[in-house]
């Protein structure tokens, strides 16, 4: 197959993945709708509901039997896995077409980044059941993939000289990995905030706000470690490409800003008066900065990191 054929096959897979993510989104949304529509169960009925549900489920829980209640979520999860496999295929094919790692311009950052975000979500199942984040994650995935294919798609082109280095492989991949964890963490923080505000509807069926906060923190800390590494790898790369490890280039500024926000978040978690919703806001602001860095900074700010691929960089 030629490069162009491989690439169009990759695109086809991206579209398929988008379709499957959309279906997964619908399934997760249905799950949430059902959770919120649930009526408190009369005490007698609870005996029939059976032992399927988690032991610590609140008393006035859902009417639907556990099996049915979770079916939509299970379908959503299965679809997410399928979509993820498709997207992984698309990403790998793109890399094969280009003959290099598939993260060298904005379109490819999006492709790999979303694969990582969804991958972190899919894998988190091995650790915890976070399917209640499914709507958030598949929503992000569908939206971003849509924007990526429509607005920032570029055909395969060779790497600019500055990008021809192993640091591209390490620095950018670790950055997307960090973004994946931050995405999950901010989803948890968002739910934590929602729950603190009004613990009704589907929110009632989720872990407590305090548990959300703990999970969000653990995920966020992993993201922070990766981000620290991103920052350092970027500095080493800048040293070899531009002759200085730190020059306050726009992209460097934003990497720094994000790092400092998350450092603030970690401190906030350890400080009376900042724990709880305030620290959750910090995690959301941090993830907002990640998105901003990827979109607005890449497209509209000038700097040495002219790698959106939308104008052929020198």
């Amino acid at each position, binding site marked *: 197959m030629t490069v162009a054929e491989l690439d169009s096959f990759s695109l086809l897979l991206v579209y398929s993945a988008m379709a499957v993510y959309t279906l997964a989104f619908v399934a997760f949304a249905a799950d949430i709708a059902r959770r919120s529509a649930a009526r408190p169960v009369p005490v007698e009925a609870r005996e029939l509901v059976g032992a399927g549900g988690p032991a610590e489920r609140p008393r006035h829980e859902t009417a639907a039997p556990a099996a049915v209640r979770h079916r939509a979520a299970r379908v959503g999860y299965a679809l997410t896995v399928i979509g993820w496999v498709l997207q992984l295929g698309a990403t790998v094919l793109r890399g094969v077409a280009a003959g290099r790692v598939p993260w060298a311009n904005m379109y490819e950052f999006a492709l790999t980044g979303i694969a990582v975000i969804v991958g972190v979500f899919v894998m988190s199942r091995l650790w915890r059941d976070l399917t209640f984040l499914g709507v958030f994650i598949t929503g992000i995935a569908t939206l971003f993939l849509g924007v990526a294919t429509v607005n920032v798609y570029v055909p395969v082109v060779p790497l600019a000289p500055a990008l021809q280095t192993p640091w591209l492989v390490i620095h950018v991949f670790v950055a997307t990995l960090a973004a994946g964890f931050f995405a999950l963490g901010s989803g948890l923080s968002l739910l934590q905030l929602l729950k603190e505000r009004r613990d009704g509807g589907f929110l009632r069926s989720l872990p407590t706000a305090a548990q959300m906060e703990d999970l969000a923190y*653990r995920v966020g800390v992993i993201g922070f470690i990766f981000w620290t590494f991103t920052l350092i790898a970027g500095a080493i790369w800048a040293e070899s490409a531009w*002759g200085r490890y730190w020059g*306050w280039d726009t992209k460097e500024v934003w990497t720094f800003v994000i790092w*400092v926000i998350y450092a603030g978040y970690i*401190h906030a978690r350890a400080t009376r008066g900042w724990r709880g919703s305030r620290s959750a806001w910090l995690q959301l602001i941090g993830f907002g900065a990640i998105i901003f860095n990827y979109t607005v900074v890449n497209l509209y700010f000038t700097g040495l990191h002219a790698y959106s691929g939308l104008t052929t960089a020198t």
Partner: protein
Amino acid sequence: METAQPDDGSGGGPRLGVRGWARFLWRQLTSMRTAIVLLLLLAVAAIPGSLIPQRSADPNGVIAVREENPELVWLYDALSLHDVYSSPWFSAIYILLFTSLVGCVIPRLAHHWRAMRARPPRTPARLSRLVGFQTVAGDACDLDRVDRVLRRRGYRTTRYGESISAERGYLRETGNLLFHISMLGLLLVIGLGSGFGYDGQRLLVEGRGFANTLSSYDSFNRGQWFDDAALKPFAVALDDLEVVYETENPNAVGAPLDFTARVTVTEDGAQRQAQIKVNHPLRVADADLYLISNGYAPRISVRDASGQVVYDEYTPFLAQDNLYTSLGVMKLPDGLEQQVGLRGFFYPTGVQLETGAYASAYPDLAFPVLSLQAFTGDLGLDAGIPRSVYALDTDAMTQIAGGDSGVDALTLTPGQSAEIPGGLGTITFEDVRRYGVIEVHVDHTQTAVFWIIVVLVLSLLASLLIPRRRMWVKATPGGLEIAGLARGEDPTLERAVGDLAERIRHEADGRGQEPMADAPARESTIDA
């Protein structure tokens, strides 16, 4: 959590006195709340520097912005908006932050030092309120065995009567302190160390060289404490600059794939050949040499009306786009009857558009075309004001070729000549070479920074990932009570207590000592 508490009442009294106030302010500054606020402030303060061009990163952008917004120049200057990262307000934030850091770390160092040498704390009277509380079969005779189990798991243990107090994870706090200290170290090393270095830039046309002396640099930035005598004697000549372009991929034809500057280095009386590539700087003496940009330098000669050569030089043109449409300027103050200025474009592969104007179709030299406008009048060189060699001030000049002058611009291909209108002389486009801009960078902080970074990452990992916890095992008439206490973030504490209980039970099993060893995991709790 060992967080400083600023609101512990110390600041409330009406008569604080100077020392009281000082202590109060110091407590405020070194509190975690202040640290958070300062961190967030630092994040916010860093942002303007990414919106407004900075002198250090984008000097041309600074000039452009100031020309576009003359009415805002005073504001840019008043707030140092073109030097955000060395501005007083940005410095104030990070100096406060690091002062806070020192004030925070020193007491914690002392505290940690003591904690490392002290015995684990006394066993609380009631364990039942603590994490993972449970009771397993056993009595005081089992404590030795339990002690061994705990030690094997990295706990430091001590006895208080019929109980064991154990603590582990001191490395977490060590890591945390080391992490904060290495950040301080990083700042100091970069701040002080970079004062001893320099960086200079020099544009070299192929075939030319320069020596590492102050006067041969086009631009030179020295650190505060840099001594010009410390410039190491070496010379570098650019033999040739090779650029490889994509030729096959239809979406990227003309995209550069590789830049290689082949140079001859003269050092200690010996010559050697070497290369500089993007991402692969060249080390010469204590300096790193980078290839940071490149372009074309047409060689243009000018003869006066009598045929005498008055100008013959490779003149660097600055690339304006990816196709190397390049802009250049020549100033001829003497030699001709009048002062002449030439300004125009160089196209490595020139194509003529329908309008008659030229454009560049490809970045390599396929069909080089030079198109120049000519001006006569006052070049403004005598006024003593420094002028950029890349800009021509035509305010006091008359255009004699190109533009609205009624005479076509002088359009030349290599080897061609043209008359300068008005019988001033002739101009010849001799040939064209590439040039490269070499940056020479001396930085003595690299090694130190590298090692600090290694420590910083390792200590961060230790501080975020190592759980710090206390564990108590107490012999009571009802069995061995076990419970834990988290010190800092410790999501797996409960499981750890469960594991310990399991282990103790298992050991008892293994030895067959305890007939009642398979008692249920959670026995009824008898609270003493």
